[in-house]
């Protein structure tokens, strides 16, 4: 059980961080911070769609990750 707990905490932490980065990245993309739109070749027309995809993906990942991280 201790091994499972350790794995859960580690995976939960990684998933939460991935989710958090995803949401931050959504705003970097929207405001073209560090010229990410050009670096990743994203067209301006679909920016809002990408933003929502990253936000939803990030939110779901954070919630799921927290479930794992706080598993007792």
């Amino acid at each position: 059980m201790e091994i499972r707990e350790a794995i859960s905490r580690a995976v939960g932490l990684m998933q939460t961080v991935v989710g958090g980065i995803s949401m931050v990245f959504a705003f970097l993309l929207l405001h073209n911070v560090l010229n990410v739109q050009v670096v990743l070749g994203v067209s301006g027309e679909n920016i809002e769609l990408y933003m929502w995809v990253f936000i939803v993906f990030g939110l779901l990942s954070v919630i799921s990750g927290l479930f794992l991280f706080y598993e007792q």
Partner: protein
Amino acid sequence: MDEPHLKRELGLLRATMLGIGGTLSAGNFIIIGHAASLAGYSIVPVVFICGIISLLTMFSYCELGTAIPRAGGEYTFVKVAYGGFLSFITGWFEWLSNMFYAALSSIGFAYVISYLFPQINIPLTAVIMVILFTIINIRGVKETGTAETVITAVVLAILGIYILSGWSFTQETQTSIASAPVGLLGIFAATAYLFELYLGAEAVAAAQAEIKEPGKNIPRAIILSAIVLIILYTSVVYIAVKVVSPEVLSEQSSPIAFVAEQMMGPIGGVLVTIGLAIAGLAATNEAIMAQSRVLYAMSRDGYFPKKLSEIHKRFSTPYFAIVVSAVLTLVFTATGFVNFVVYAVNLGFIIGFSIVNLSVIKLRREKPRLERSFKAPLYPFTPIAGIAASIFLLVFIDPSVLILGLELSIIALLVYFIRMIGYYRLRVAFGGISLGLGGFTSFLTYLIGTGFIQLNGVSPAVATIVFYVFLFVSVVQILAGILNISAPSRY
């Protein structure tokens, strides 16, 4: 060791002042200007009609308040009558409406003050107000009730001076009210807009766990508040349109202060501004108290985290519920939008009023032996008329607010669903979602790796980084999904 309880400290006078004080919001005197542009001179009957519509539902509040003497107001009534999702949605909207009302009161205060100090920052002033009254509410209901009584008495005295001066002024100047220049649609729109004018008296029912002899004092306080307010608002608006035209009224940032200045000179404007500013303080205080009590009751029933129903051992107040509500109020207050907040308040209360009236009908049928110190007169006409009038006004609510209402209903459904299905099932559901996301990301990784998806305009080095990021994310998501789904059921 006994768990701390809310104390019964409010008598008839303080309970009545609570109802009047919560209703006499500075925001109400600001929105009169816009309502005058909608209804013209018909604003006078509109204000009276709003009072009558409100009174119809207040009878229901009185009946339910004496039959079910527990904290929580509408939410508690509907829980006893219907239970389940309907009580949750009532509490949800009651809580949100009070939040919007607190925001409106504080913004109204800031606008009123700006009449004397045009250089002030309106959202910032409103935010400071909310923080101040949050601290007062955490300190306790005794301090709150005493402050409320004093503040309301001062405001009533100032508005009394305004009305007396107005009667005298209009007698001397022989002004006359012309017929309404607007159609029925304008009158209905103004009624829907001014619906919130009388909101606040029902807060007496929400604070019933803190009122002495609730069987007697709750109906008396609610009806007394409603009657005083109908007379007061109708007189204030009648004098306003007798002194200046609705067109001029609608152009003022603080219409009543402007009218007072026309009647009594600069001192009149200053006096009314002080009165309305104090009213803004009282209403914000009241709304913060009411919303925290609803949140407290909903948390007590398990809809929200238990921490929100924790009572402060020293002050005997639901301090955590007060703080959480205040934080959300601050967000809406910081926007500084008046009309949007007004319609949002109205929407929530229209829904709440309709369900409260339905609860009276249901309890009369299903629990006829329930002890009621007060019964709504002319039953079933009063609750049915209250429902019909409320629903009719929905048609005239701003469409953007109706959309907001729909969105808030969806969130309410989600919160209720999460509460009902429990922790373990929710966790399994999120495990499934993670697996799905992991599978989808793996598929994308495969397509990028095999060259089926070309990243146009991206250098090979960046494309390689993207590939490994996707690979890492898919592994994490799949692992997380498996771990959540395989979680032991005791969680």
